[in-house]
């Protein structure tokens, strides 16, 4: 996810959960169909074109879904292969997860990669979430020229290709910030820089939809500024903060470029780095097993987020998570 990941939060998510997703779904069926159908029924060519096109489009869409997901499903399947091959199915087995000397459980380098990825993602989430929430609150309420500059600066990491950011961080840690060793400390700093903007964008869009009324009501009723934040704004923000944290976690797990530029030796190898370096030199279904475990981790985080947010009835936060 890159990058990239995730790269359009400010343009993408708002539109579709505020206007795009709710409006066309609720209004058009009620409003446009009746207006659209009578003329379509009266003239047959138009009806045919209106009916046939979605079939082609639907086929294309489902083909796209198959194209984008089937390879991954097959890769997961091969992590359960009983043989060494990654191209022919030789029966079901869990040997690449545990049991085989080269399995994920037995190979220390694969175990280390998994542990590194998880620790890095947790640390990044713990730092980036509060930092991003504070920045979002500050930027949303603080007016002035400095604030506008800070705002533009905050968006820049989202637009920068990862290789530019990775090489810049690599050069600064090897030439200027020599007190930060390459490896996990540098990787955490780099991942936070990469992902703090996601939190800012999500929390700000939620802040904008909450408005300032609740807060001023609390202030009028005698709450101090900090008390109003704590008692009124934070509870309303919780779903967005949670969504932001999940995205930070996922983008940290997903990141390859920055982890790789800031990893000096085998001790700080993460799962994506391990997959990248081993897949051409030492391919084995154990790599598929490792990738499957990473996938299971992301799916677990996603499912957890969904359960928590659904109970809180905060469906719009879920929609915010989706496009990232």
């Amino acid at each position, binding site marked *: 996810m890159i990058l990239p990941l995730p790269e359009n939060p400010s343009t993408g998510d708002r539109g579709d959960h505020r206007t795009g997703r709710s409006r066309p779904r609720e209004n058009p069926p009620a409003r446009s169909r009746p207006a659209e159908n009578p003329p379509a029924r009266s003239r047959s060519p138009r009806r045919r074109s209106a009916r046939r096109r979605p079939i082609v489009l639907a086929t294309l*869409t489902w083909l796209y879904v198959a194209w984008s997901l089937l390879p991954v499903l097959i890769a997961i399947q091969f992590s359960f292969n009983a043989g060494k091959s990654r191209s022919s199915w030789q029966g079901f087995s869990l040997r690449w997860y545990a049991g085989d000397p080269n399995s994920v459980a037995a190979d220390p380098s694969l175990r280390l990669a998994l542990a590194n990825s998880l620790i890095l993602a947790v640390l990044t989430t713990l730092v980036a979430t509060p930092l991003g929430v504070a920045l979002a609150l500050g930027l949303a*309420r603080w007016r002035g020229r400095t604030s506008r500059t800070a705002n533009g600066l905050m968006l820049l990491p989202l637009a920068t290709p990862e290789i530019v950011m990775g090489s810049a961080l690599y050069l600064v840690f090897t030439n200027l910030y020599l007190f930060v060793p390459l490896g996990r400390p540098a990787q955490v700093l780099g991942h936070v820089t990469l992902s703090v903007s996601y939190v800012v964008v999500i929390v700000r869009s939620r802040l904008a939809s909450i408005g300032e009324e609740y807060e001023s009501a609390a202030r009028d009723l005698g709450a101090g500024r900090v008390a109003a934040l704590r008692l009124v704004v934070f509870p309303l923000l919780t779903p967005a903060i949670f969504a932001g944290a999940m995205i930070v976690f996922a983008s940290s797990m997903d990141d390859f470029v920055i982890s790789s530029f800031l990893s000096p030796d085998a001790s700080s190898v993460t799962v994506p780095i391990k997959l990248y370096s081993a897949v051409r030199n030492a391919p084995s279904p154990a790599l598929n097993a490792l990738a499957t475990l990473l996938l299971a981790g992301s799916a677990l985080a996603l499912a957890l987020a969904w359960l928590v947010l659904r109970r809180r009835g905060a469906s719009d936060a879920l929609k915010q998570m989706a496009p990232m």
Partner: protein
Amino acid sequence: MSRAPARRRRASPLWPALAAPGTLWILALFAVPFYAVAAVAFGYTDPVFNAPVPEWDPRYWDLTAFGEILQRSLSGDLRPVFLRTLLYVGVSLALCVLVGYPVAYYLARHAGRRRGLLLALVLAPWWINYITRMLAWLNLLQDDGYVNDLLLASHLVAEPVRWLSGNPYTVVLALAYGYIPFFIVPLFSTLGRVDERLLEAARDLGCSGRRAFWHVTLPLSRHGLMTASAVTALPMFGDYYTNTLVSGSPTTTMVANQIEFYLLGGSRKELGASLVLLLSALLMALMAYYLIASGRAERELT
């Protein structure tokens, strides 16, 4: 009565204080590193240790390395690399438009009851690790992999296609496969915002469905199309891992592969840093467009 507290709130030192840590963080770990790239690019190489020495003072910047990179990019060995990068990204982006636009259009307009499910499926790749998705294709594209099995069984080819050793088609397809989810989602959100009533009006005025699409939907989705293209092209220009994974051959090298080579592999880091500067300068227009577009989206919201 309500205005006075509002003014008081804006003058409060709490908000700058909240914004300060994050702003300082981005300054120290985004702006300063970028300056470090310039310092290394315009620095010199220590003749004794053969190591790059960054020059932090702009008055003493040495343009030799940057000049060398510029010259090689304009007429030397890096020229084909830049042209190839442009070609690969261009073709991949065209594929993204060809496949992604109809999918986004269908999702936004016609998906009906299945919309939630389809949206979840289209979004799923966002949550799947990029390298994992490439690994999946590496399994399928081996000489004896499923893709070749299928092609051989259907007698489309006589012998297995060698996909994974310097095949430019594989690189282009892999780039398109990797980044198309980033293309579909922003486009989907724009298409969903196109007002249905405008399309009705076009039909009432006698437009066929196709003409309504050309004259109403497409112009209205232009911004989304541009944003989606910028969002997709930017990481594609900076991608080196896809290329290494599915090809690994010098015949398909892209700019980012050269950056990785000089920065992590070679001893002449000032050349790598110069290439980063050159690539950033070339991508500046795209980045600026993206920033302006997201700024506009933000303003529409608030």
